[in-house]
């Protein structure tokens, strides 16, 4: 066993969350802040999002521009961003085995931030039956193929999903010179801004099949079509040579699992409290790993926030653990998903079904801590819950629950 190289804070993953954390930590004067990135370039998912949708309303940016901004900021603040380095496994509670062209190494830190992101579930993980032809992608793979490698992707594509990332996939298909034959969603309508959905339907003439699922992939060698089924039982074959499975994010939680961190059953990422602390002291989780997947702005905000908690940890603060925060169906998950009375980070939630003007109830032991009416909620869209109620949490009174009551439930 070689001896470990020591740093102050080790951050795994140079996406928006990891880079934002690194920038703030370095700017706050932490000596050795090191970010490990397994890809050849830092920036995370935005690197291959060669479209708008990043930055702020006043300063819209493309993904790559946003990535460059974050990389530059982290570097200028004094953090070290090492690309081509994979964190393989844990060597100790706060040290990791890494691998790079320089060989294996062990790096030990005083705090570790996991910011390893989330991926879209590929076809097999969704248990879509059929043959195993070429031409089956996720949005992430499609974007890498088209925007990072300039590869040809077929001519006629079906996009599975109708949320923001699905429309991004449709844009990427078109950018690659192919046609979007149809988009489809199991839900009753698109889960994106109405203007965006209308633009695809009307200007690009892409039909959106609602209440529809893919039941089989067809074709030997190359995809020849997808069989779909409508909720009413009708089936059809859509001839195509490409299909893109979009959304359905799952955290890249391998390191979290290997550390045996407590996982949240809803997000499947590590359970975190409002300081983004995991169940292991000194290990923090930020970005899509903790909530698969929110906007890059949310990931960046997480990174900044986690940095604050890391600073407190480095300063010797040792807070008691939070109590579990769980959602009740039809809500799917909430993050953070542990809570302490001092938590201030706003919450993000997802619902499994469409909810018309739902009222959220936060309760502990039957006691209502908070009530909040939301606008109509759609699956695969972010719901937000401010953290103004957390001071009412009794750390000794057991789990806190978030549930909804609705006037009408659609779908």
């Amino acid at each position, binding site marked *: 066993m070689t001896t470990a190289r020591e740093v102050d804070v080790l951050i795994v993953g140079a996406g928006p969350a990891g880079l934002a954390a690194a920038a703030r930590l370095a700017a706050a004067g932490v000596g050795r802040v090191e970010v490990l990135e397994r890809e050849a370039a830092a920036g995370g998912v935005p690197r291959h999002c060669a479209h708008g949708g990043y930055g702020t309303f006043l300063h819209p940016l493309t993904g790559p521009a946003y990535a460059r901004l974050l990389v530059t900021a982290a570097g200028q603040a004094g953090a070290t961003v090492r690309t081509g380095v994979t964190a393989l496994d844990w060597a100790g509670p706060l040290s990791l085995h890494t*691998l790079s*062209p*320089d060989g*294996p190494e062990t790096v030990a830190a005083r705090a570790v931030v996991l910011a390893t992101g989330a*991926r879209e579930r590929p076809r*097999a993980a969704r248990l879509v039956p059929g043959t195993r032809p070429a031409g089956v992608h996720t949005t*992430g*793979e499609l974007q890498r193929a088209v925007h990072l490698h300039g590869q040809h992707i077929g001519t006629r594509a079906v996009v599975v999903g109708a949320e923001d990332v699905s429309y991004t996939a449709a844009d990427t298909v078109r950018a690659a010179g192919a046609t979007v034959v149809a988009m489809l969603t199991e839900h009753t309508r698109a889960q994106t801004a109405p203007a965006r959905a209308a633009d695809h339907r009307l200007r690009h003439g892409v039909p959106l099949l609602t209440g529809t699922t893919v*039941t089989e992939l067809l074709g030997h060698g190359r995809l020849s079509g997808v069989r779909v089924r409508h909720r009413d039982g009708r089936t059809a074959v859509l001839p195509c040579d490409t299909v893109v499975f979009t959304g359905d994010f799952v955290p890249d939680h391998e390191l979290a699992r290997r550390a045996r961190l407590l996982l949240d059953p809803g997000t499947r990422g590590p359970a975190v409290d409002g300081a983004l602390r995991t169940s292991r002291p000194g290990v923090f989780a930020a970005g899509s790993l903790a909530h698969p997947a929110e906007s890059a702005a949310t990931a960046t905000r997480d990174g900044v926030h986690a940095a604050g908690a890391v600073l407190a940890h480095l300063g010797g603060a040792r807070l008691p653990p939070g109590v579990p925060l769980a959602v009740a169906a039809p809500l799917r998950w909430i993050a953070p998903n542990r809570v302490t009375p001092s938590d201030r980070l706003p919450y993000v939630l997802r619902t499994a079904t469409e909810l018309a003007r739902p009222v959220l109830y936060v309760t502990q032991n039957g006691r209502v801590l908070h009530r909040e009416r939301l606008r109509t909620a759609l699956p695969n869209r972010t719901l937000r819950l401010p953290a103004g109620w957390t001071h009412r949490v009794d750390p000794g009174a057991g789990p806190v629950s978030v549930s909804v009551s609705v006037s009408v439930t659609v779908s």
Partner: protein
Amino acid sequence: MTVTARGPLPAEPYDVVIVGAGVVGCAIARALARRPRLRVALVEAQDDIGQGTSKANTAILHTGFDAVPGSLEARLVREGARLLTAYAAESGIPLDPVGALLVAWDEEQLAALPRLAEKAERNEYRDASLLGPAELHEREPHLGPGALGALHVPGESVICPWTTPLAYATQAVQHGVDLHLNSRVEQVSRRGDTHTLGTGRGTLRARRLVNAAGLHADTLDRRLGHHDFTVTPRRGQLIVFDTLARDLVRHILLPVPTALGKGVLVAPTVYGNVLLGPTAEDLDDRRATQSTAEGLTALRAQGARILPALLDEEVTAVYAGLRAATEHEDYRITAHPRDGSVTVGGIRSTGLTASLAIAAHVTGLLADETGLDLGPARALEPVRMRDPRPSADRIAADPEYGTLVCHCEHVSRGDLRDALAGPIPPRTLDGLRRRTRARAGRCQGTYCGPAVRALLEETTRA
């Protein structure tokens, strides 16, 4: 070394042509490579070796404890297991001697265990032992509730199903066997003592013919005028779970066969995944390697009983293979002395295990029954298959081994480069995956797919 995938085929007759480069055909080619005087060709319809049934099985190296005693299959499985275990060690084929537990879930299955133990004895397997429920749950803490006992068969192993035929074929071509891919044998005629084989790439001539065409062995046999058996493909669908599920299971968990059917197994793989399957569906279509909603639902229902926690894990792949079942309860390995051919048919569900013993048996038939003069034998230079583990030494020698491309399976650029430059190079992404594991992990190519494709296209264009 001759490996071709296009262009005309050699005109000069071969002493032996083996049709079908599955694990069986490749093993036979390797066995004949030990005879330097023979000119041998292995011809394959597809663009890679091992792309038929051999790529889609449960990857178990069986002891043969539950074979039909006295059958040819029983003997060849028993001998094959021993031979392949040794060969795997010599060649660096991944193998994990995990052992198997036949788990009884009801009284009928429990009652069957002692009979299976006796059957194992009759198959010359003496290490099987019965376990009570307490010991069973101690060995398999994640097993579902209700298991009543088990038969422990410590000799069962899991092996890499892709490296095995590749090792055989590599060794064969390195010792002078010609491999012709993309050469489906469509016609066969015999004039004098020579077969003329019509393929999409022209004709090949052969003094002896070995029919190792798997699911199509009966079709090829009929072209030779033999009507011994008919293949009825029996589909087996399988679900592969992510490596993070590996800690849930320590042995191969086999079902106890009863009158009601065979049931499904849960088995670790040499790469740390967990398999659930296979189904058993008799079909007509020999290309029906698709999975079905019914099949996957049935597997998940059975898996939920065997290892409930498994179903919470991510699925990395779903696939299906077709067993070359026939109307007979044994292999159909037959020599046809009059036309100088040997048919290797009906290698249903144990062909990976038995491959080396089948090859030895077929070599014997070629000599004894078809009168082929094998000539002197030589020892083969061992083949060393790739050791994929990143290590300090390898990376110090070449940093490309430290540049990971496939993050889920930790496959480096160096390993991809080596596979692409191998003696039997892959021609497709799937071929590259079988050689390196690139794109075989939980993301299924979301992260590395385009980068791997770029490397493949760079090589195939060059």
